[in-house]
């Protein structure tokens, strides 16, 4: 789960990380009030989870109340690469002498948190890593020991930060690590971390990804939302407890097991089609959850055909067939279905489907055959 900048900053504030004072706003009047409260000059920043906000005109500096009103009006509602800005973050503009970079990432390969610090902040860190990897000081932390003050000093000296701010930088990195562990993040990044003329060290941006599996321990974080990025199918699926990811194509996908569904998307793409979604009905799917899932798939108006690809292990194919039959009766879909069922009780399932004589539902024996068929049907429907 990715957080918006201001959500990340509010999370950082709980760990004492120094920042410019700021406030969030969802309308122009609150934005102006926020600007008046934090003082001028202030930065008015679009809250969308996408890089290149600044270049797209989503970040502006206001020197007085009329500029604050003007910029807030311009940025709210702005379309930044498909995301409509619904929220602003207004913060006192910091004076900047140096721009650093700090991050804690969940290193899956090393199975340890990786802390990174560089004096080359404010730019794309992947480019720095590719061109001058020696400019980034790195450190793996033993999670059973934790991040100690000496780790912070070591990173600061190795990264070559200005001697008078070693302490401030080390402290902020320590707080960043504490936030990473305390909130169970997969990523906590500050780019840039700035040094002001008064030699204060501030977190000027925040990029945080939280572990969705840990949200049960963090109810405040679980409640965070991004109004600029709400997909109707994804919210509908979430309410129904389904694992669904919206994609760009026109072929609805229903499957069981994440690996098999990913594989199904690949096989459909290989046959020349474009999947509309990823949907994993999970193990032991029962008839009512199948109806709910099909309803989500069909609520996407782009869908022109649906592929049903199930391998029954714990999931019984006859149960899946019953769910499909019920769904077709309740929902009367206008798009064709291609069904491929294999595994536990597959023979009974095929008999049930044959007996039901559902209009627009055809079966195929293999995954590859089913993919080819559904791609052809979707193409026919859009012709």
């Amino acid at each position: 789960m990715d957080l918006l900048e201001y959500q990340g900053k509010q999370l950082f504030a709980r760990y004492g990380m120094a920042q410019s004072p700021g406030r969030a706003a969802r309308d122009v009047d609150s934005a102006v009030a926020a600007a008046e409260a934090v003082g001028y000059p202030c930065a008015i920043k679009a809250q969308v989870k996408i890089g290149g906000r600044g270049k797209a005109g989503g970040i502006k500096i206001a020197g007085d109340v009329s500029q604050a009103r003007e910029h807030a009006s311009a940025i709210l509602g702005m379309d930044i690469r498909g995301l409509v800005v619904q929220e602003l973050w207004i913060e006192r503009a910091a004076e900047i002498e140096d721009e650093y970079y700090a991050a804690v990432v969940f290193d899956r390969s090393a199975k340890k948190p990786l802390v990174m610090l560089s004096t080359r902040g404010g730019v794309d860190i992947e480019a720095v890593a590719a061109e001058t990897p020696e400019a980034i000081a790195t450190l793996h932390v033993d999670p059973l020991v934790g991040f100690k003050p000496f780790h912070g000093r070591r990173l600061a000296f190795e990264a070559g930060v200005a001697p008078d701010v070693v302490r401030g930088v080390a402290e902020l990195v320590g707080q960043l690590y504490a936030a990473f562990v305390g909130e169970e993040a997969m990523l906590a990044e500050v780019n840039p971390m700035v040094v002001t003329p008064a030699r204060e060290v501030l977190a000027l941006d925040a990029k945080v990804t939280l572990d969705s599996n840990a949200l049960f321990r963090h109810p405040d974080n679980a409640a965070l939302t991004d109004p600029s990025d709400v997909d109707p199918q994804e919210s509908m699926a979430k309410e129904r407890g389904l694992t669904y990811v919206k994609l760009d194509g026109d072929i609805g996908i229903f499957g069981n097991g994440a690996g098999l569904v990913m594989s199904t998307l690949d096989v459909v793409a290989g046959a020349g089609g474009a999947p509309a979604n990823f949907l994993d009905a999970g193990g032991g799917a029962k008839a009512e959850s199948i109806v709910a899932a099909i309803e989500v798939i069909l609520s996407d108006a782009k869908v022109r055909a649906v592929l049903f690809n199930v391998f029954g292990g714990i999931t019984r194919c006859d149960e899946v067939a019953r769910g499909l039959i019920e769904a077709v009766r309740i929902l009367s879909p206008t798009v064709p279905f291609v069904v491929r069922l294999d595994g536990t009780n597959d023979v009974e399932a095929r008999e049930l489907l044959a007996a039901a004589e559902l209009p627009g539902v055809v079966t195929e024996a293999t995954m590859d055959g089913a993919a080819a068929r559904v791609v052809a049907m979707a193409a026919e429907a859009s012709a």
Partner: protein
Amino acid sequence: MSILVGTDTRLCVSGLTGREGSFHTLNNRSYGTNVVAGVTPGKGGQDVEGIPVFNTFREAVAATAANTAMIFVPARFAADSILEAEDAGIATIIAITEGVPAHDELLVYNTLARNPGVRLIGPNCPGVLSPGEANVGIIPAQFFKQGNVGVVSRSGTLTYQIGNELAQRGFGNSTIVGIGGDPVPGSSFIDIIALFEADPQTELIVMSGEIGGTAEEEAAAYIAEHVSKPVVGYIAGLTAPPGKTMGHAGAIVSGSSGGGAAKVQALEAVGVRVGRTPTQVAAIAVEVLGGQRS
């Protein structure tokens, strides 16, 4: 021969008294797995269809000499249960539980790493099946028979799909190992491939990976150095968009890392043939084994 589970397995199940736990444990027992105990705090002294339940792993191990644990408790309790099994001296721990927090997995991994005598499979995995010997977990055993193909996979249903296609062509399996779809699995492809390399029954290794992380790339480097047996690969999620978690917590392309194409390339560069569909994987496996039935 087989790896990880077999006729020597003495299984103790954490979460035996739960609905899912009892259902799958009894299935495992019907298959022939030697299920010796269950652990549920506060239910010691009870039994589930004759399987004695203990309050702690230590009691269960002392009374039954259990050597293998299956973890079936809810996600919030899973890390604690794994550590309890290790503390009680269990050598092989198989964690089926889905949705375990990644930071819990990190602490478990780094704790278990201090004990060279213990091996964790999972979490978020379908378990381990050695056809004809023992089944620990939720793999539907009816699709698999004994044979010479070792399978290691990050996905459950995809494993059944590939295994079923192999079976239709007349091949069986030494052991099928689901290592799970989480960011920090207890065992990696490398760990399991090393066991298959040393297992005389295994003549071909099938590894089924997916997007996210770099475990497949690391396996490729290991195979080039240490594996003499043929390996056939598969990678799911080649067309998945970046930044989206595709069902498994670990299946996500983050920025320039975790993409499927790089994994295929790394495997093919060291001579591993990678099927583009599950059907192709089975076809390649048959070709490598010379079409002979096992």
